[in-house]
């Protein structure tokens, strides 16, 4: 993933483009299989054995087994696909969003009720870094 894109300057965002598509195909196709109730049952029964059916990289496999939601995105996961693992676990989109953004479920829900995450200071990676250094 060496070629840079204009949208790479957006902080905390993993655009599912050609670079990630090449890396994430098998991971996302595993997630797709969870649309079938019988597959969800088999996956929950023995996750490691179920994953053997797909050619995941060791890191992709780890992120799935550890439910490292943010990590999945970094190794080619597409959120519309990886969320299916969460549904299988009985989690909601908001549960996963809070985990990816590193806050508690309650804190995240409170932020959304207050109008969501502001774009101010969240448009560019550099600005985000500046905001952090300002505390």
């Amino acid at each position, binding site marked *: 993933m060496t070629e840079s894109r*204009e*949208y790479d300057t*957006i*902080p*905390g*965002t*993993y*655009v*599912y*483009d*050609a670079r990630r*598509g090449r890396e994430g*195909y098998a991971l*996302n*196709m595993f*997630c*797709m299989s*969870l*649309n*079938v*109730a019988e597959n*969800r049952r088999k996956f929950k029964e023995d996750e490691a054995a179920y994953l053997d059916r797909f050619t995941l990289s060791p890191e992709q496999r780890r992120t799935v087994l550890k439910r490292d939601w*943010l990590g999945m*995105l970094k190794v080619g996961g*597409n*959120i*519309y*696909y990886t*969320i*299916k693992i969460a*549904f*299988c676990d009985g989690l*909601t*989109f*908001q549960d996963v*969003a*809070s985990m*990816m*953004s*590193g806050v508690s479920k309650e804190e*995240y829900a409170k*932020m*959304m*009720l207050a*109008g*969501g*995450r*502001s*774009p101010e200071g*969240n*448009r*560019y990676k550099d600005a985000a870094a500046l905001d952090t250094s300002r505390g």
Partner: protein
Amino acid sequence: MASIVAGIACSHVPAIGVAMDRGTTGTPYWEGLFKGYEPARQWLAKLAPDVAIIVYNDHACAFSLQFIPTFLIGVADRFPIADEGFGPRPVPVVQGHPALAWHLAESLILDEFDMTIANEMPVDHGLTVPLSVTCGQPQQWPFPVIPLCVNVVQYPPPTGARCFKLGQAIARAVASFEPDLRVVIYGTGGMSHQLQGERAGLINRDFDKAFLDGMTKDPLALTRITHTEYMREAGSEGVEMVMWHIMRGALDADAAEIYRHYHVPASNTAAGLMILENRRTT
């Protein structure tokens, strides 16, 4: 002759469907959102269109990454409800309109829009939530539906300008269909939201308001918003708003805003609803 009489822009947040399916729309969390849907339901029931074209994106249900159609039209006579990973929504099967759908497919392709044609496919919340929002919970949907899917899952989605032109081609195609049908077109998805990464939860009210205003003030200017600008300003999944341009392009330049409703939050999303009507009556 058939004609497009109105357009509906509507967010398709899955949690909105869940709230309706579980009967929790009256809770303090959802009350404000659903109250704002009432006038739209009354308007649509009164309009009683003969058929709806619903522009939406599939969310890894009908299509996986194996095939990624940029624009697809469903020509089946019925579309079952998809299992999205937690069982299908308990809503009626969607009836299609094969005669108009095939006419659209042929007209659009000959008009240089290279549609993929689907003879069989399930439909997910992207299509059923806007139906639920605007029709409530009937035993059967009040009109047949032509699904028109747009890829927004694999970057890049089609540009806003291309979507607008597809909308214009849809209007031409509808106008060349012999039977007198009154057609509504839905543009779904959005508004600002980000579902992924550390930046999840992003909402941009100013962007959304300007977008809603622009739908009547200067829709062509909106078509020049780049994908990067959508993602930066309206969140990575805010790029779904390109689908609104298909609806807008299918309407007359001077279409009038009849109603709007905007509410934050619906789960992770800013939910928008807008009704536009063509002024001419046929």
